[in-house]
Structure formats: C-alpha cells, structure tokens
C-alpha cells in the first residue's frame, strides 16, 4: 500500500456520507476491501481518507417481504451464499456467489463492494439487472433509487456521486407471479472471472404464461447490457415453449449477440464472446424453464 491515509469509522450512514461529501474523490469507503486493496497496491487509487463502513448498523442483512427482497450493501458474499433456502431468487444468487473468488475471500467481500467496483465481468451484476433490481443510494441530500442497469456507467464507474453510498439492493417481487432466475458464465478454472456471462429472470402467471422477463449480459461491453428487445419477444409465451426449439428463442439469441459489443483481450476473442452470448442466454432460459417445471 503506497499512499498514507487517514482512517475513520463513522457510526451512521449520515456521518459517513458527510465525511465523503467533504473530501470528494480523495476519500473512499472501505467495505470488504478485497478489490480496493488491490487497486490501492497498484496505485490505481491513492485515497487520503479511508472511511470504514463495516460497523454501520443496518447496512447488513437480507430481508424479504411481500413486494421485495432487500439485500444490505454490507452483506457478505458468504451471507448471501447461506441465504439460499429463503427464496428462489436468493437460491440463484447463492449459486452465483459460489463461483466468486474463494471461500476465504467471500467471508469479507461484500455484495455492495462487488457492485460498486463495477467490473463489467462481475458475477452478481447481470443477475440483479435481470431481476429488475434497484440500487438504493444514500447521500447528503437523502436517498434515491437507481435502476440496476443505470447504476453501472463504465469500467469501475457507477452513478454514485457527491458522497453517495450504496445502501441496499431491492429486488421487486409480485406475489401473483412465480419468478425464477438463472446465471451462466464461461470460465476456465474454478477461480476465474467470467469471460462472458448472462442472466435471465422469468416471471409467469398461474397459467404458465410469461409475464415478466429480464435478460442481461456481462463481459461483452463496458457496462452490463440489458437486452430489452429480446425480453419483449418472450412476453406472452407459454413457459413450456422455453425449452423447445422455437423461432422466438433463436431470435432472442441473435438479438443478444447483436446487442453484445465484446472486445478481444488476453482472456478471449470478441468473436468467441459473441458466439458464447447465444449459448449462455439459451442456457439461462432453459434453466428457468426447468426451474418453473419443478
């Protein structure tokens, strides 16, 4: 760690955001620190003030009510992992955390930290986008809600501004619909970041007709992409059609591949990534169909 810095531990969100608003970009929040410490060591960040938010009441934990699932930003990946049996969407998120880093790191890394790091290859981000989640941001002027796909602005860039802090993620629920989600990624070894990833979330009514659909792609653009035109195609279809070779499904794959704007880098070629978008999207939809059947 190269820079010298001050360390403070505010007791409340208000105190934290006030500190951050005061010092601007030279201050940084410390959540799990697992990404930040790497940036720090490589001098990508050299903060003058480290604001430790690990002890702030209310930032941690998962709550489910009729209309939404609330995930506190300071919830650790490990806590999310252990929430699998509380809701079917949490089950999907739990499976995702198992792909992330290593068990040791998961005990300190946080959901909020993972989102605020805004890596286009992050594993949780496309799932939250597909689930229609909102980010709740707390700032000196109060709270605001941002749709998850608008939270990400670029590589390591979010819509947080002026001292704002990510307080929680809200996943909307509709008690009249059954909802399932799936996430798939291309990786090479057990500890890897996604070369390509995709997530789908499907809601169906009691007749099995698709009423809501979210499809999100990661690692194929600087931000998480939401494929709205593909989502629309699936609305009104019967879930039984999802597993079959339907024209709509092929179209969804193609629209997803068109939406993707991948680059070639040390991990994979753009061509491979574009091809894999189709496979990943198809597999997430098939997963959803299987879950809905069960």
């Amino acid at each position, binding site marked *: 760690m*190269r820079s010298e810095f001050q360390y403070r531990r505010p007791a409340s969100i208000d105190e934290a955001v006030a500190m951050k608003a005061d010092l601007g970009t030279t201050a940084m929040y410390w959540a799990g620190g697992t990404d930040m410490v790497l940036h720090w060591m490589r001098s990508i960040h050299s903060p003058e003030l480290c604001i430790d938010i690990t002890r702030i009441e209310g930032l941690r934990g998962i709550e489910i009510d009729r209309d939404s699932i609330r995930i506190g930003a300071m919830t650790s990946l490990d806590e999310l992992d252990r929430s699998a049996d509380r809701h079917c969407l949490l089950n999907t998120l739990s499976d995702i955390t198992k792909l992330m880093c290593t068990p040791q790191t998961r005990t300190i890394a946080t959901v909020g930290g993972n989102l605020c790091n805004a890596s286009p290859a992050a594993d949780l981000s496309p799932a939250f986008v597909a689930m229609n989640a909102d980010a709740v941001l707390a700032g000196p002027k109060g709270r605001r809600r941002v749709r998850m796909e608008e939270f990400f602005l670029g590589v390591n860039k979010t819509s947080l501004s002026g001292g704002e802090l990510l307080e929680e993620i809200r996943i909307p629920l509709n008690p009249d619909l059954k909802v399932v989600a799936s996430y798939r990624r*291309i*990786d*090479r*070894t*057990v*500890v*890897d*970041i996604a070369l390509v990833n995709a997530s789908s979330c499907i809601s169906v009514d009691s007749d099995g007709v698709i009423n809501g659909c979210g499809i999100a792609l990661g690692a194929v653009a600087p931000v998480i992409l939401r494929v709205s035109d593909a989502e629309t195609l699936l609305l009104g279809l019967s879930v039984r059609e999802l597993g079959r070779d339907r024209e709509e499904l092929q179209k969804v794959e193609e629209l997803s591949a068109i939406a993707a704007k991948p680059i070639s880098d*040390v*991990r994979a070629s753009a061509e*491979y990534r574009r091809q*894999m978008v189709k*496979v990943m999207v198809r597999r997430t939809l098939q997963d959803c169909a299987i879950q809905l059947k069960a």
Partner: protein
Amino acid sequence: MEVAKRSFDVIGKGVHVKDAREKVTGSLKYAVDMTVQNMAHGKILRCPHPHAKIARIDTRKAEELPGVLGVLTHEDVPQNDWESAWFNYRGKVLDGIGRFVGDDVAAVAAVSSDIAEKAVELIEVEYEPLPHVFDMELARRQDAPTIRVEGNERPPYAVKWGDLQKGEEEAEIIVDCDISYMSQQYAPLGRNACIAEWMSDRVTVWTSSQTPSELRDGIHEALGIPLSKIRVMALPCGSSFGQWWSNNFMLITVLLAKKIRQPAKIELTNEECMSTVKRRHLERTRGRMGCTRDGRITLAEFDHLIDNGGYGFKDDVGFFCVDMWGKAKNGNYAIHGINTNLLTAGCMRGVGDCTLGASVERVADRLAEKVGMDPVEFRILNQITAGDELRMQHSRDNMKGNRDAYIEGIPPHLRKDWPELFCLSSGGTRAILERGASAFRWKDRWKGWAVPHAVDGSLHRGVGVGTGAHVCGVEFEGSSSAVVRINPDGSAKVHCSVGRQGQGSETTQSQVAAEELGLPFEMIEIETGDTDSCPWNHGSLASSTMYRTGWATRAAANDARRQLLEIASREFFDNADIDELDITDGEVHPRAEPKSNRRYSFREVLNELRSETLGQTSSITGRPSVPMPPSTTFARQFGAQFAEVEVDIETGQVKIIDFLAVQDSGTVVNPQVLKNQVIGGAICGSGFALYEHLVFDGETGAIKNANLLDYKLLRCADFPWQAEVLFEEAPDPVGPFGARGAGESPIAATMQSASGLIFP
C-alpha cells in the same frame, strides 16, 4: 540386469516431509523472509523496448534522491559471460543492450524499496532501438536481426539411425504433423529475492535456489573471483519447476552490494517473477511417422524448434521421447534452439518431453487410428523396455553415432561394474501401460477414436492415454556429490546442495542416508543450500535428485558407515572383519547375532575414539570415492496416464473427470512424496494442455498476462480428487536401493492423456 528386491527399514516408507510443520505453521524461511543487518533495498530498471542499445545513461538525478545509496549500470559490470545450468542463460550481467521488454538495464540501491522504485524512474536512458524479431522462423533467416554475437541459431542437436528411405518404403501409412506450442510460465506461487553481503573480497549470497552450486559457479564466471570466495546459502524456493536456478537478478544483487559496499537485497514482484526471469520455450514440431498395417513404426522423422528468447542458449539438448519410441527401426530427429526478442526461455519441468514428446504421441495416436489399433496396444508394441537400445545417445557434445569411441574412452576398471551403455537399464512402459489399462478399465471405457463414451447434451465424455519419459539426471556439467557426517552424539547430517524446491528431496535424501547407515530417520538432518559445507551438486534439476544425488548420498553414507565399523571393529570387536558387523537402529552388532548384547551405539563408538586418541576428531565424514556411472546413457523414468475428460462441445470448456497415473521410477523411496510429484506433474501438465499460456504483445513482445488472474493455473478443485497413482517398481541396478528419477515423466505423459481424445 536383474536386481533382486529386498526389504528396507526406511526406504519405501511414507514418512512425513521434514519441513511439513514449518510449512504449515509458516515458519519456514524463504529468501523474501530474510533480512541482514544494514541491508539496502534494490530495484531493477527494465528495458521498455524489445531490442535496444543504451546510447546514453544518466544516473545523476537518481543518485541525488535522498535515501539512494548507489546505482549500478553496465559500465560498472565486468564484461564476462556467465552461464546458468543447462544453457538457461548465457550472457553478461549487464552489457548495455536490452534484448526483450523487461530485460535488466540498471539497478538502484536505497534505504527503502519505495525510494529505490522512485529512483529507478529518475534514471535517464537514451535508447537506440535495434531491429527486433519475435517469430523464431523469422529469427532463423539470414537477414534476421542479430540478437546474440553467437548468432540466433547454432547447429541443431540431431540424432539419426537406420535407413530412412527403407523406413519410408516399408511404411504402409504415414502421418504428418505441424504442431505449435504456446509458452508455459513456471508461475511460482512464491516470489524470490536475493541478498548479497560482501566481507572484504568474499561474498555471501542468500536466495531461493534449486541449484546452489551452479549459482556459485555463475558468480565465479561473471565476476572472475575464485570459487572459494563465494558462499551461496540457498534457501527453500517452494514450487519452482526450473525457474529458480541461477538467475541474472541474483548476479545484479551481488554487483550492487559490491558497488555500495553494503549488503543489498533485491526482491522481485509477482509481475517480475512472471515476466522478467524465464518461461518455457515456444515450440514447434514438424515431422512424420510411418508404420505398417500391423502397427509397427518403420519411420520417425521430426524437426523441432524451440525459442530461447533473449538469453537462453539451449540447443545442445536431448529429449527422451526419442528413446521411448525408439523401437522404430529408422529415425531422424533434429532439435533447433533459436534466439528471439522475447523473454528468456529455459528448462521447465519435463522440458522437450512434454512438447516434442506430446507431438510424437499425437502422431502415434493418429497412426494407431488409421491402422485401427487400440492406443495402449500401439504403445506397448512400439515403446522400449529394459535392454532395448537408447537412440538419443545424449551427451554434451552430441556424439552423433560415435558411441563406440565414447565407450572405449572410459577406463575399463570403471566400466566393468556398469550396466550396458546406450541400453535401457531397467523399467519401460509395457508394465505401467498394462497395469494402468487394467486398473482404469480402459477396454470398457475406450470406445474408439473420437467416439465419446457418454453424451449428455453438449457434454461429451471420453478417455485418453498418454506416456512420458525423461532422463534421470545428467552428468555432463559435473558429478553431483554429497557428504555424510556422523556427529559425536550419534546423529548424522547429510550435506548435499540440491536446494529445496518443495518436492521433498530433504526427506528422501535423509531416508537414503538412514537406510544405508542403519540409523533411525529422526537422527538424520540435512543441509541443502550451503555451498561452503556441501560439495558440488547439480541441484534439483533434470530429475536427478533421487538418482544421481541419491547415489552420492548413499555412497557417502556407505563410506561413513565403513569408517564407523572400522573403529568399532578395532575398539570393540577384536579387529573382526567389518563385513561380519552390521548396524541396526543406530547400534553396531555382530552380523550373525542381530539380537546380541554386544551392541554399541554410534555415540559409544565415536567417544571411544575420542577418549583414547587425544586430539583426534570424534566425528566421521563420508564421501563417494568413485564417479557415478554416466547414467544418461542407460537410465530413464516412465509414466503412463489415463484420463477421462468432459468437453462442452458448444463452449469448448474442458474438465478432467477421472485420472489414473502409473509411474515407473524404480524403487519408491517415499510413496507420499512420489504421489505428490506425480499428481503435481499431472496438474501442471493438464494446465499446460488446457489453459496455461503466456500472451505476448504483438508489437513489443511484452507479456500481457504476468499475473495469476489472467495466467490460468489449475486449482486443486479443477483436478479430480479421486485421481490415483500406482507404482511399478522395476529396481534399477545403479540407482540408490533401485530408485530412479521421477519429477518429469509425469508432466510429459499428461499432455496427451488429457488432450489426446479431443479431436479438432
């Protein structure tokens, strides 16, 4: 030559490795953990160009920075060439030319590493860019930029036998190949550092190295000072696989410390470890192999290129797959080493045998496919077993068929006890293939070429087999020696500078000494790094540690044992012939009466000597008295491996589902250590076959994935937990207690077993 199996007290026991507790508690000291008093911290300035001459270097601004103690440039460096073991580096420490991006240009010493790092940026260098070449095919051409004064390519290492034209005529099927290999990185999990401290005109060096003696030789060559003034204290290097031998940054540390007249330490970052030291060669095999309809190979013709990068000099090199497939009546192999403006390449675990070897395996499998033969049977038919001729005739000067002259040059009194030269002394692949095929249920699981045995949607499963061979150490750079000292308290110490690269040599060498001395294993300790107390040793390389150092350790222990028995005979057993005495559990007794009360501990024997003959030392030092036979001419190790692999045909992802290795390393000295070696090699080989490769920038040749995020090593969970290792123990007539080498055939066998069933 048949060697009878015998029972042992310590050999063959899976005793825990000696430093297990230190490792798990984190107390084992590696070079990065070392400090010495008043130590300066060094940093290296690295070349930003693929090939450039330093036209001007101005260090004044760096020297003026508070806290800087001195700057070392090529102008301070003696212009002597030094050479690392096995031509892994040849050149000057610094000579004012950068030959790859990341090459060493200068070094700064300061009171802290932060200051040294800042000062490095203040050195002003005016580079005169030189034309560069990355592709080894282009680097061989007449008009290629010259990277080395010796030329970019020297004559190949070649071996030829039989009548190629006849082989071609007899071949009913011929398969061609052109196979390229990407470059694997050693990718050590630990970093390395070097500390040098001068006292007057003597220097002591602490670093993590597998080859302490070779490092001392290198310092001697580079600085031109007597070997007696250089002491290398090699520390454990952890998983090294050939990376931490003698490396140029160590030589820079020595010269930097000399210049500032103060101890200095250079500690490499992870990125430096992966992008500035060395790597496996980029390689390319072109060739063909032909066989008859009944599967007998009549022709093997291969031309193999390896790129040495900037400072590698490896062209005088034999690969032992040539021997393994040596039943072919007619053969022609040539191996060319070529310099390029890429990071230096050197020997990495299984060098050549997991590249050229994998190419030959792949071509052989294609032949087997065409003649409709099972790949296990095809190997058994065409690979060598004990007594068969070794084709490679490997020697420092590549004898090119002059084997008879070589043999006649050896004094007959030495030769008479040796196995037949240029013939395999023991082992082979037949036994391990048969055993493995049966244990893996190969015949049930193998459904034919490119036919999966199970399909689940896009997931296809199939099985593959691979074989690998390697040498058991080489004698051309010197004969590895060892010393065994029995202390007055009855404990013993082995001194052999093999370094500690984590494979367990400190434990297995101690087992050899314990067995030979008749002393309990716990009474033996070992020094593996201090060149002042250890005789010259090649180090842990070329799979030589058990075979060649083990031979020396056993000979040294035998010599110490003889001396001890002579004293015991004189003092306690009425000058009995020492053959009539024996040692059990550290006590000397009459051989015929193992339970006799007339038994004297080592301590009693040595103290008797001290009390009677005042002034005489009461410890015993044993050493080998005759040279070890030139084992390159007869000893090999073999591995056969079987893998079940699952391929996702839509995404290209590959998983290894099940794995079995059968290893032929002669007598197994420690089954735990050997199992670890074999599985480690298999994971490393699978990684190379599936994912591991360095990515070079097309414009500069710089390495773009010098980190463990983007350089993908397989983790334990990527390899099947139920992987099994079996041993076939055909004992060797020369190796200690029948043991042979082990470290490098496993990785060679994995290349084809893990990837051979995947058809493009």
